[in-house]
């Protein structure tokens, strides 16, 4: 009975399915429309999609049945994953059956009887790379693994050929019996192999290696064929949680012909918990909403499939749009199905804007006045006031002194002061950012003058200048390409040498007064690190620099800051964005590449365009950001898509200044005028346990990652117990002592210290708790205030910006 009853709906469903199929013949689609297998180890990935009612194509490849028609003995085979491979030459038809429907795809096999000899660089190396043999954690390590070393990512085919064929006393290759080659015995784990089984005997890489050895294990007579462009199909995808989808990767040859390299390519996701991909290119969506970029790599070429996994929130009301930042962010959040946070109140906005823009806590007086202000335009006026404050220039100079490595130990005091002064005045005068960058890159003259010459002065080699400038101003981390082709970018060692050549004419001279000066000398081209041949100086992706060799840095700077430059403005706005939101639209902030896409491309583009059109006006950009409703979101809901404000630790200097301001007792810096604030220190070596423990950078790198952004137990202990901070709390000239002497009531005192520390009034509960501590009499009042201040300084609300 039970069986019969349950069979009814099933039969009904089958009938319905049948109707659907017969009703519309185009319900399944097969890609590619024709299959061309050329060469014994070639493969073609077939993908079968079924169109659903919502118009989305669902991947049914692994549910489909395949058979070959047209010849007595099949000329090709196709496995259950849809991977077609050749058997013998000829033509036939592959019939794809799925859900009662059939589709037919022609297949042609060639190049099997007399195959083109295997290319070592073009086929063997990519196969070993895909199998993981030459990865940086294995034989690709600088010292190799158990005596066998391959170049990482196969960047050095000649060395790899030597390693495989000649080194190890030649025992890695058995010409007489290719299958007995140690290379294959190890790779298949037929003999003990620390890395386990990397290649199966029934796979195309195995057949490829066997054939290569049988053909004599030769290196290539000619240069390997030119690196093709890579195309991933689809380039973008919206998915549902748990969805799987087979990707297809094709190499487009210089002559326009295409070859399926899906099974040869390597795949990586930048956010596997949103969507990952296995080694066959099967995309697998997770459950976390957001966007992932799945990178496909083959022979130095890369391409990306961007996978969007929307959240469940849809149809939420769009918050107001104050400028295009809001429009583009709400668009993005709608796409992603992520609900934006509510709006921050005046107090949260004021504290946040001051700290992010000028590294300074607003005073209690400022906070009180702003909160009482009834002007609807008061937030805009506040932004203008902050940007016009001297603290803005101080703070920006400090942040850029980090990046430009204003290090007293490297520059000496004279040089560090000079560079800090130049930075300070550049930001005070709102120097256009393109001019700023040009002056840094083409600096010359004395390091002791007010100039940015110190930056280049401490970089000792053209290569170091090149990769620092590139990371700093272009967001292009080309450092990888010093030793090997960049694993996730188009940059190779030639690009690295070409960029280094832009900075060869950098001379240094000791002046009569003992200071050093930067000179421009005739620039020279740099040799390719591997081939030793000179590479023409050229910025990444730019034209060769062919002007006056004495002005090569100027020529580079002109290319860098030109409106057409694809990196410069984006890298700049991304940095500014990161200062306001805790992370860049592209994260890390100085690593812009297609394989590390931004959280919002349109927004990044639009910000860069606006920035260029404004004449690279940093203050205008800051104001634009501050005025957006996105920046004015309520705290606590931070996320990778900027749906709300994130918590960020205050930088060491900012926190120290905040402690000083809240306690009313400035820090005493050795040798500097009383009241000097930490954000104004030019001397990064100024002894200060506080700054050290809260992560002041030593300015050893141009990476903004150097500034410590993680909390530690020592920090917590210091805020709780440091005698220095306790002395500030107890100081006769401090906030507690001063307020105790006023006629303010306990409730008013609570208000006052909340405004001073957190720029807001306390809640009723907080007011009661603080007021309860403030007793009668001078001493009791002072002690109560000291203890209340101590507690507030130790809250996460105080230590963070939010």
């Amino acid at each position, binding site marked *: 009975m039970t069986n019969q009853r349950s069979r009814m709906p099933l039969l009904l469903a089958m009938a319905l399915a049948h109707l659907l199929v017969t009703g519309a013949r185009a319900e399944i689609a097969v890609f590619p429309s024709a299959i061309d297998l050329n060469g014994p180890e070639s493969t073609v990935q077939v993908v079968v999609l079924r169109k659903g009612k919502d118009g989305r194509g669902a991947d049914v490849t692994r549910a489909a049945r395949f058979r070959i028609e047209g010849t007595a003995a099949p000329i090709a085979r196709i496995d259950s994953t849809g991977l077609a491979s050749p058997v013998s030459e000829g033509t036939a038809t592959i019939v794809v059956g799925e859900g009662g429907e059939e589709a037919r795809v022609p297949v042609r096999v060639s190049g099997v009887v007399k195959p083109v000899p295997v290319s070592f660089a073009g086929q063997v190396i990519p196969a070993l790379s895909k199998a993981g043999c030459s990865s940086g954690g294995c034989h690709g*390590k600088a010292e190799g693994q158990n005596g066998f070393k391959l170049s990482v990512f196969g960047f050095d085919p000649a060395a790899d050929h030597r390693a495989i064929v000649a080194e190890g006393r030649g025992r890695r290759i058995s010409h007489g019996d290719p299958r007995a080659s140690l290379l294959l015995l190890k790779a298949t784990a037929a003999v003990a192999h*620390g890395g386990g089984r990397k290649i199966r005997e029934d796979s195309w890489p195995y057949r490829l290696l066997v054939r290569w050895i049988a053909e004599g294990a030769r290196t290539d007579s000619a240069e390997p064929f030119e690196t093709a462009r890579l195309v991933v199909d689809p380039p973008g995808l919206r998915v549902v949680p748990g969805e799987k989808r087979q990707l297809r990767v094709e190499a487009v040859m210089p002559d326009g012909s295409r070859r399926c390299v899906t099974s040869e390519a390597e795949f990586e996701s930048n956010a596997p918990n949103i969507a990952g991909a296995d080694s066959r290119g099967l995309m697998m969506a997770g459950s976390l909403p957001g966007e992932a970029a799945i990178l496909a790599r083959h022979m130095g070429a890369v391409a990306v499939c961007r996978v969007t996994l929307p959240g469940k929130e849809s149809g939420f009301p769009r918050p107001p749009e104050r400028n295009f930042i809001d429009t583009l962010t709400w668009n993005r959040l709608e796409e992603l199905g992520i609900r934006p946070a509510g709006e921050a109140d005046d107090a949260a906005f004021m504290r946040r804007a001051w700290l992010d823009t000028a590294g300074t806590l607003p005073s209690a007086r400022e906070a009180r006045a702003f909160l009482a202000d009834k002007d609807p335009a008061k937030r805009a006026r506040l932004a203008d006031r902050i940007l016009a404050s001297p603290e803005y220039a101080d703070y920006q100079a400090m942040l850029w002194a980090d990046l430009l490595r204003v290090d007293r130990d490297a520059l000496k005091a004279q040089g560090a002061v000079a560079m800090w002064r130049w930075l300070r005045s550049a930001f005070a005068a709102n120097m256009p950012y393109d001019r700023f960058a040009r002056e840094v890159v083409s600096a010359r003259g004395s390091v002791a003058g007010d100039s940015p010459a110190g930056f280049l002065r401490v970089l000792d080699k053209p290569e170091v200048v090149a990769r620092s400038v590139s990371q700093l101003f272009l967001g292009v981390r080309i450092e990888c390409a010093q030793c090997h082709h960049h694993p996730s970018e188009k940059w190779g060692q030639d690009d690295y040498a070409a960029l280094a050549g832009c900075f060869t004419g950098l001379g240094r001279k000791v002046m009569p007064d003992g200071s050093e000066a930067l000179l421009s000398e005739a620039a020279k081209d740099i040799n390719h690190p591997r081939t030793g041949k000179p590479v023409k100086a050229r910025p990444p992706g730019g034209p060769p620099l062919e002007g006056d060799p004495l002005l090569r840095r100027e020529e580079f700077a002109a290319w860098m800051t030109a409106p057409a430059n694809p990196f410069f403005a984006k890298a700049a706005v991304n940095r500014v964005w990161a200062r306001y939101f805790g992370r860049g639209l592209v994260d890390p902030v100085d690593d812009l590449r297609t394989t590390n896409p931004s959280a919002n491309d349109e927004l990044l583009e639009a910000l860069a365009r606006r920035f260029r059109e404004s004449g690279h006006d940093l203050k205008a950009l800051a104001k634009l950001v501050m005025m957006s409703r996105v920046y004015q979101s309520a705290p606590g809901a931070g996320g990778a898509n900027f749906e709300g404000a994130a*918590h960020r630790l205050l930088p060491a200097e900012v926190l120290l200044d905040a402690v000083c301001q809240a306690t009313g007792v400035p820090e005493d810096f050795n040798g500097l005028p009383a009241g000097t604030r930490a954000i104004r220190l030019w001397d990064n070596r100024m002894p200060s346990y506080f700054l050290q423990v809260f992560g002041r950078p030593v300015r050893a790198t141009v990476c903004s990652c150097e500034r410590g952004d993680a909390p530690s137990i*020592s920090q917590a202990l210091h805020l709780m117990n440091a005698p220095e901070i306790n002395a500030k709390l107890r100081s006769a000239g401090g906030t507690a002592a001063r307020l105790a002497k006023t006629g303010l009531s306990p409730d008013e005192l609570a208000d006052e210290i909340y405004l001073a520390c957190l720029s807001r009034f306390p809640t009723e509960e907080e007011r009661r708790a603080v007021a309860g501590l403030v007793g009668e009499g001078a001493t009791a009042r002072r002690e109560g205030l000291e203890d209340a201040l101590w507690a507030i300084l130790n809250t996460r609300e105080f230590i*963070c910006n939010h």
Partner: protein
Amino acid sequence: MEPGDIARPGMVAPSRRRMLRLGGTGLIPWLSLPGLMRMRAEASTGAEPKAKSCIFLYLQGGPSTIDMWDLKPEAPAEIRGPYKPIATSVPGTMVGEHCHRSARIADKFTILRSHSHNDNGHTTGSHYVWTGQRAAFADGANSRVPVNEVYPSIGSVISRELGGRGGVPPYVNMPHPLTAGGPGFYGAEHAPFVIESDPVQPDFEVKDLKPDGSLPESRRRRRLELLGKIQPAIPLAGLPATLGTYQEKARELVSSPAARQAFDLSREKDSTRDAYGRTSLGQCSLLARRLVEAGCRFVGVDHGSWDTHFTCFPSLEKDLMPHADMAFSALVSDLADRGMLSETLVVMMGEMGRTPRINKQAGRDHWSMTQSVLLAGGGIPPGRVVGATDKTCSYPTSDPVGISDLLRTIFHLMGVDADKVYLTPLGRPVSIVSGGRVVEKLLAG
């Protein structure tokens, strides 16, 4: 490797903060670290770790081990120097006359005479010893050349891999740690807990560990009570969660008598303190023992002034050698007496040895090609000499041991897989130790 489980090269390494967020809730990040990728499936040995903790006595500047542990009495005067070898408790093993305390307990430790590497600089050599990575900067100028990748020290690696096992932080460094002992790109969470004062000072106190002494207990309590009232509960995720767990851990450290006592040297008998030597190295070594007792995993002790280029012998025989001899011998004996030696690895070394030939200023210069390293406990069979140097102590003649080998051996003893791969900020996969092999001769009894 399955996709979806871990970070891979070429992709963006999760930021530290995000890593913390992934690291779960309610636990101190150092106890709940997200697993990074393991490219090699098998662990290095699979053997039970022998050492639970390591005390690393670092003789900064380069100890003259030719005058201490590897004397050359047959060599000409300008090489053998003024000191005579003396017999030890191990028949056949001789050490320098100024190391007589250690000589008496030579059956409790092993001398590795063939440590050798080729970085002859202080900052670069120290970086090499502490991180296992060659310095990407010139000696003495570690801030000149920008590098994106500053590597974590052995203590930070151990903090990250093993976490704490008690109320004290997993990695403590004292009294004045070198940059090389820092966390590198691991960030502040694996930075050493630094004791900013020297335990040899009479007023020694660990910075920030005790609340303001002049504050009455009632006020301390009400401060904490108020903080509890005005601060919301620790949220489940994000930076505030991490921050909150650190604040709690700090409060525990301050309020837990066990943790506070671990740092309190005054609880030691005067005779014990005297035995270690009333010197910086001696008192740091004693404090190190207390911290290990309380669960600390790695204690680094920096002891300076070993860079003896000029008129070296007076300072060697009056200060440096006796201080090291007392501290090391007292520490090893004390650990043995307390039954802790088998689980505590003690290593004493510097970044280099000194030149065999005495220079014109009656000193010895940098010589990284040979250095004797002392190892005790933690699974090192004692009472042996491993490796040898030539007639002039210029080069090893057997069993040369490089820095990677030594670090690999330490990690092996502590049960850390030195082949574990993590990503640098550039997204480069780097194993904890690159190259080298476990020094089997040190482990074989």
